[in-house]
Every structure is written in structure tokens, then in C-alpha cells.
């Protein structure tokens, strides 16, 4: 018999344990109707099984963990944005249609005043242990029932104690009050439907509340009727019940609304104007910061790449400090320093600039902070590129008698730009989504006065999206936010594609 090594057993346990775990999760997702996740997890389990147990091929064994996680947490969310963008997923549209209609029916109920509170007692049916409530209704008759059924009891079926409490029903003893609490989970879900639409629901462990509905729902025609006014409500295309006169019922439900999130940003002036401003600033900001950052970095690199100069290493170490401070914290510090009038910057320079409250000054503040955080990187790559210029070329130029300016503009600069161009484009693509520098410094503000949704003068697409989805005073609009992230995807994609192309041509050149 072949000896089974410890590590082999461990490996089997690990593999099968993982597969089991994933299968269990997949099943739970299936029960909870999370279809995609369920399918994905079943698929993952079978892929893991085939890759690690059946297949003899090696590459898959190394790639699979990364690929599965990448699909779930990077690629799936991107496509999910696409799906959400076509829904009205937002506050007030969070429930499913059934839940929403249920909520409308439930919330509109009017309590029916009864002379005496309707007290109930609890009986368990012996065979099934099903919970039933026994109670004396307002017409002094006795009833027994639960959500499924309710029947009137004959006095002969009941046995009372001396103080008038029900002792047993059909020989079945009622639960003592200290026993009732054990069945609280069943009791609280009971709704007893009496005649003429009156329903009874327990409000504590001894009292039933009688109430009368205002709305009735007819599932076959998908229609709510207000029994008091006779008004009828039908679902509209935005996931809400609406009457002929245009009265809306809340809550609504999550519904597919087609292209409306996309068209609304074009047709609705309140959204179009701020969005255009945000889009413009997104691109302008990215462009400016890469340009300024690069120029600053390049000039510094030229200045400090000088052989007769000492303490170059010292300077370099200090220059990269912006890279070494956690940017979230440094930006928050900057935001304090920029406080108008009382802030450090205004006090040092004896100015009173409304840095964060004036649109233009806020933009300047953003650029200063972004410059601070990007120039070290630009300095490093420029230094690298300058040092990589073959010295023969420069010497040859010198021999040819080229002036320093000429050497710089005609030889050094083109060579440096050519080397760093792909890096600059990549930085540009990153700068499009420089969320922290915007959101933590200005919060995207100051806000435009004519915008619905809190867009501000320094907002870029990603910060505007964040505010729409998570910070909006006007409710969290996930659908609209997703539609805008798609716009952002397209923008980033276009620039990155351009960068890739450029990189390819570079490779061909070299």
C-alpha cells in the first residue's frame, strides 16, 4: 500500500473543504435568489474541482485563484454598473414590487376602535405544534385562528377558569403566560383575516389590534383600489403605483427604466449643465495636473541633475516626501491649511483668499495640492529619462557646436518626452479619477446653485458619482450614479487605449 503523505492529505482537505464551502455558499445564494452569484459560485466550484483534481495542466492551477477573484471583484462590478444603470435603484425604490405593495397595504391600515381591547391566548395543536390564537372578538363571540384560517367557537368547545380566563379549547390547554414568550417568533407573524376585510394582528403578547385596510390589491389586474375614495392605482413605468389623476403611492419598487438615466442627463437641464461642467473639469484638471506636474518635475530634474552639485541625494530624499505621507491624511491637512482667513496659508501670506468657497480659488487649491502630490513622481521619471540619454549623443552635439538651448530643445527634450510619454498618459488616466484630492480637499464644492444633486465647481466624475450614490441629500441614486460611472469607464478607456497605441508605436520605434 502506498503511503499517503501528510501534505497530500492536507492538500485534499484544503481543496475539498474549499469546494464544499463554495458549494454551500452557492446554494445559499440560490435560496436568496442572487442568481448571478449562485451561478458564479457553482461554476467556480466545478472549475476548482476540474483544475486541481482532474486536470493535469499546470498553468490553470496558478491562474485560477487570481482569475476567479478578478472576475468577481473587478470585472463583475464593471458589468454590474451597466445593469444597474438601467434601473431606478435609489431611495424609495429599494423594495421588490411585492414588498412595496405589501408595505402600501400595511401602512395605510386604519385601526378599528373596539370598546375593549381584544385579548388573546395561545393554543398549540398537538399533532403539528402549530400556533393558534384564541380570542373574544368585539361581538363577544369566541374565535380561534392564525394566518391560514379562523373559525368561530361554540361556547361548548371552551372551558373557562373561575376568573373568566379561557382554560382550554376542545380539551387543548391554552399556554400559561410564561410559556407564550417561547412562541414569540410564530406569534408575531400572525395576521388573522376576519370578515369584511378587518384584520387582527398581535401588538404584544396578549393584545390583538383590529384594523381596516384603505387599499385593496387585485393581483390579476395589478391594481390597487382605495376603498374609501374608490380611486384606482396602476403601476407606472418608474416602479410606482399611480392613480389616473397622477397621485403617486409610496414606497415604489426597483424597476427597469431603460435608458432614462442616460437620457435624463441630456434632456434635463438641471442635470445637463452641472454634468457638462463636471465633465469639463474632469478632463481639464487631469490635463493641467499632468502638464504642470511634468513641467515642474522636468525642470527640477534638469536643475538637480548637475554633476558639480552636492547634496543631490538629500534633495531627492526630501522631494519624495509627498509620496511617503499617506495621501488621505496629507490632503486633509492641506484642507485645514487652506481654511479662509484663519488658515495657515492665508495668515503666512497675509491674504484673505476664499480658497475653498470660491469656485476659481477652489480649483487653484486643488491644483496646488495635486501638484504637490504628483511632482515627486514626475521628478523621478524625468531624472531617469535624462540619465538614460546616451552620453555620446550629447557629446556629439557639443562637438558640433550646438548651443545648450539647442541641445536641450532639439535633443534632450524630445528624447525625454518620448521616454515618458506612455507614463504621462497613464498618469493622465489616473488623474481622471483622483478622488481623494478632490473629495477630501473641497468635497467637490463649492456647489453650483442651479444643480440638482450637489455637483460643485471642483467635482470630477468620480466624486460626483460618489456624492450621487452615497452622500446625496437628495437620496442615494445608485442607478444614476452607475450610469455616470459608465461614462467614466468610457473616458478612462479612451485615454488608456490611446496610451496603449502610443506605447506600441514607441516599441516599434525602439
Amino acid at each position, binding site marked *: 500500500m502506498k503511503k499517503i503523505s501528510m501534505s497530500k492529505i492536507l492538500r485534499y482537505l484544503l481543496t475539498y473543504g474549499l469546494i*464544499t464551502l463554495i*458549494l454551500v455558499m452557492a446554494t445559499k445564494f440560490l435560496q436568496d435568489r442572487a442568481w448571478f452569484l449562485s451561478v458564479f459560485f457553482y461554476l467556480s466550484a466545478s472549475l476548482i474541482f476540474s483544475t486541481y483534481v482532474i486536470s493535469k495542466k499546470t498553468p490553470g492551477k496558478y491562474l485560477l485563484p487570481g482569475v476567479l477573484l478578478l472576475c468577481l471583484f473587478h470585472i463583475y462590478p464593471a458589468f454590474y454598473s451597466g445593469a444597474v444603470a438601467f434601473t431606478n435603484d435609489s431611495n424609495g425604490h429599494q423594495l421588490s414590487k411585492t414588498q412595496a405593495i405589501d408595505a402600501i397595504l400595511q401602512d395605510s391600515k386604519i385601526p378599528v376602535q373596539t370598546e375593549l381591547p381584544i385579548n388573546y391566548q395561545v393554543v398549540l395543536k398537538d399533532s403539528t405544534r402549530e400556533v393558534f390564537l384564541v380570542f373574544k372578538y368585539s361581538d363577544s363571540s369566541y374565535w380561534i385562528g392564525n394566518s391560514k384560517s379562523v373559525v368561530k367557537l361554540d361556547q361548548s368547545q371552551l372551558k373557562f377558569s373561575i376568573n373568566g380566563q379561557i382554560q382550554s379549547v376542545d380539551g387543548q390547554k391554552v399556554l400559561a403566560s410564561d410559556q407564550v414568550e417561547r412562541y414569540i417568533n410564530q406569534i408575531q407573524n400572525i395576521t388573522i383575516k376576519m370578515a369584511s376585510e378587518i384584520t387582527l394582528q398581535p*401588538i404584544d403578547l396578549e393584545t390583538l389590534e383590529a384594523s381596516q385596510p384603505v387599499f385593496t390589491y387585485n393581483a390579476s389586474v395589478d391594481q390597487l383600489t382605495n376603498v374609501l375614495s374608490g380611486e384606482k392605482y396602476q403601476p407606472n413605468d418608474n416602479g410606482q403605483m399611480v392613480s389616473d389623476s397622477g397621485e403617486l403611492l409610496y414606497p415604489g419598487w426597483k424597476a427597469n427604466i431603460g435608458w432614462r438615466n442616460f437620457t435624463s442627463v441630456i434632456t434635463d437641464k438641471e442635470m445637463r449643465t452641472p454634468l457638462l461642467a463636471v465633465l469639463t473639469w474632469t478632463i481639464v484638471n487631469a490635463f493641467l495636473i499632468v502638464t504642470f506636474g511634468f513641467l515642474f518635475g522636468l525642470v527640477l530634474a534638469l536643475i538637480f541633475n548637475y554633476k558639480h552639485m552636492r547634496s543631490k541625494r538629500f534633495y531627492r530624499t526630501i522631494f519624495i516626501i509627498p509620496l511617503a505621507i499617506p495621501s488621505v491624511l496629507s490632503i486633509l491637512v492641506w484642507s485645514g491649511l487652506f481654511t479662509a482667513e484663519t488658515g495657515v496659508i492665508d495668515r503666512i501670506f497675509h491674504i484673505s483668499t476664499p480658497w475653498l468657497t470660491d469656485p476659481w480659488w477652489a480649483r487653484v487649491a486643488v491644483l496646488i495640492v495635486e501638484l504637490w502630490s504628483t511632482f515627486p513622481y514626475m521628478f523621478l521619471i524625468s531624472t531617469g529619462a535624462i540619465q538614460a540619454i546616451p552620453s555620446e549623443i550629447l557629446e556629439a552635439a557639443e562637438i558640433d557646436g550646438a548651443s545648450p538651448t539647442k541641445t536641450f530643445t532639439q535633443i534632450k527634450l524630445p528624447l525625454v518626452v518620448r521616454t515618458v510619454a506612455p507614463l504621462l498618459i497613464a498618469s493622465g488616466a489616473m488623474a481622471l479619477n483622483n478622488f481623494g484630492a478632490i473629495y477630501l480637499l473641497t468635497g467637490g464644492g463649492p456647489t453650483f446653485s442651479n444643480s440638482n444633486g450637489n455637483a460643485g465647481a471642483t467635482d470630477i466624475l468620480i466624486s460626483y458619482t460618489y456624492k450621487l450614490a452615497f452622500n446625496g441629500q437628495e437620496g442615494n441614486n445608485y442607478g444614476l450614479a452607475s450610469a455616470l460611472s459608465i461614462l467614466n469607464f468610457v473616458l478612462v478607456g479612451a485615454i488608456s487605449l490611446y496610451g496603449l497605441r502610443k506605447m506600441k508605436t514607441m516599441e516599434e520605434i525602439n
Partner: protein
Amino acid sequence: MQRLGVGLLAVSLAFLGSIAPAQAAGTLTVWVNSGEEAAYKAASEAWASKNGVTVNIVAKCGLGDCGMSKLGPAGAGPDLFTASHDNTGALVKSGVVTSLSSVIKKSAYPAAVTSGVSFNYQQWGIPIAVSNIALATNLTLVPTGAPKTWKDLESTATSLIASGKASVGIVTHIDGYFMQPFFDSIGGYVFSNKNGSYINTKQVGLNSKALMKNAALMDGWLAAKIFDKSNTYDGSNFSNGKAPYAIVGPWSIDGLDKAGVKYEISSIPAVNGGTARAFSGVTAVYMNRFTKNNLLARKYLVEVVQTAAFSKAITKANNSYPANIEAAATVDAKSVAGKFGAYGALCIPMPNVSEMNNVWTYWNNAFADWASGKAKFGAAMDSAAKNLNTALGNK
């Protein structure tokens, strides 16, 4: 080996499948504002141990609805949570809260308080605390104490600024909530209301006739530095003794005490006499519609949250004023909480309709435009009102 593996798989699957996702019976989860969890815990302890229930208090909420609109339907919400009453409309319209009409003992609260948590003829929250902003006077700069009239306030501020002792008059955040008393005092209002009940959102008063007539007053005060227009939340001008007055809330008290300022809390005088009314806010406990502990939660609300002792314990911890009448009666009128409460009784409840969300946007923006000098007060409010009416589909 392979077969062993498959067998193992099957067995463990069966095992895991048999473990039902059980939620411990007798556990209530309550989400409260961060910083207040200790007070809630202490005030619930006796009841919890008496009933053998675990009350799990978690600091999860800040402003707004605790993320309930998303977490509630996902089944990830608590059984109960606290929120300020102005969220009521939005919570109800999102369908994430349950009516508490059958729980609330209305007679235990002032009518203004219960109307704050009522919406669509139902009661949705159990009130705990009332909080509102008030005027703080720096007693070192103004030894005579809180101003009795607006004239008093204005002249004190002007003379202090003129003498260089102060740089501004009133430190405040320039937005709708903090400026509401002054807005009210010159005749502006958000929606027309009847006894604190805002049913008619068609009538927007951001540019009411009275307000437009008096708008120039605001421009004058701003120019005279009566208001601190630096518009930061940092109240340092007041705590440094550079301003005689500030608009503060119960949440500011700790900071002021720590800074060692000598101050007095009072109501805010109105321009034409009487009191300028701020918005009062009610902190209330709401019940998640999707709770699995419906009856237990109701029991907790009735036996704990609704008691005077609870209201008192929570408000004592955060310097606010008890919503419960009986608890409020025990507050010393000379204490800070008492003074906030005394002014609060004269205030108007913050509208709890979901339309307020739009109001905040335009109203706050109008204040910002005005403070930054982009527009005169009247013009800013007029355009805010027009934008708001368009957004709400009025006219």
C-alpha cells in the same frame, strides 16, 4: 483517494446544509448615533437582564437614515434605530420603517414632538430627545449677558467690532439650518405650515413677500460683519473671544466647556421683537419594517424607550432636552439643557417631508452665494425658490 474526497465532500455538504442560519432568539439590535452608545447601553441594561434579552447597541448612525434605505430591505438592518425626525418622510416613502401608532403613548409628549414623527396619519418613531440650536453669548465680552432684543444684540456686536475687541458679531454656519432663526425673523419660511404640520409643499416661502421686503437687512448685517461669513464649521472665533455671539447646538457644549469659554445659552431675539424661531429636531427610535423581532422590539419600546427615565438618561448624556414631558419637568431650567429646552419650546419643528431634501440643496446654495458675495440676499432666495418650485413640480 479521489473517491474518499468526494465522499468527504458529500458528508460535509450534508453537515453544513443541516445548520440552519439561526438568529439567536431574544436579541435586539439597536443602532444609535456614534458617541451615544454608552448611554443607551446603560439605560437598557436592567430591562435586558430582567427579561433575559440581549440588547445589542451599535454605534452606526450619523446624519440621515443610517443607510437603512439600503440595509433594511437587504435584511442587514437592525431591529431598531435612531434618526432625527426630519428623516421620517423619506424613511416612510422608502418603505423601510413600521408604523408605531399602536405603541406610542401620545400624551407623554408635547404635540409638536409627536407631529414631528407622524406622517400620512401614522406615528413612526418613539421620541427621545429634542434638540435645537440657540444663541451663545460670550460673557467675558458681554458681561451684561444674553441680549433681550435684536437691537441689543446688534448694537453690542457693532460697538465691539468698532472697538476692535471682536472681529465678527455672530459665529454661525451660513446655511439653511443655522440661519433659519434669522430667516424666520424677517418673514421667510420653507413651506407654509399649520401647527407644525407641513402638508402643503406647494407653497414655498423662501421668497415670501415679507422676506423680499426685508432682504436688504440681511445684506446690511453681512456687510457690518454681524454674521461670520468665513462659513466654516470651526467655531474658533467664538471660543477665542473674537466674537460676542455664536449659534450653537447641544453638540457644541463639550467643545465650549473644553475651550474654557464663559458663555450663556439663550433664545434668539427677532428683529421686530419676540423670538426668532429655529428648527427643532426630535431624535426618535424607529423600527425596521424587516425586523424579525417585531413583538420583542415593541415590548422594548413600550417598557424602556417610552419611559421618562430613558428619555432623561439619554438626554443627560448628550446635553439635549428630553422629549418626554415628565422627564422634561425634571430638567433644571437654569442648566444648559434647560435653556436649550426653553428656547426649543418656542421653535418650530423641522419639516419632515421628503421634499426637504430638495429644499436643503437650493436653500443652502442660496446662502452660500449670498455669503460669498455672488448675490444679494433677496435675489439669492428668489432664485432658490424658483429652482425649488421647478424641482418639486409646483406651478
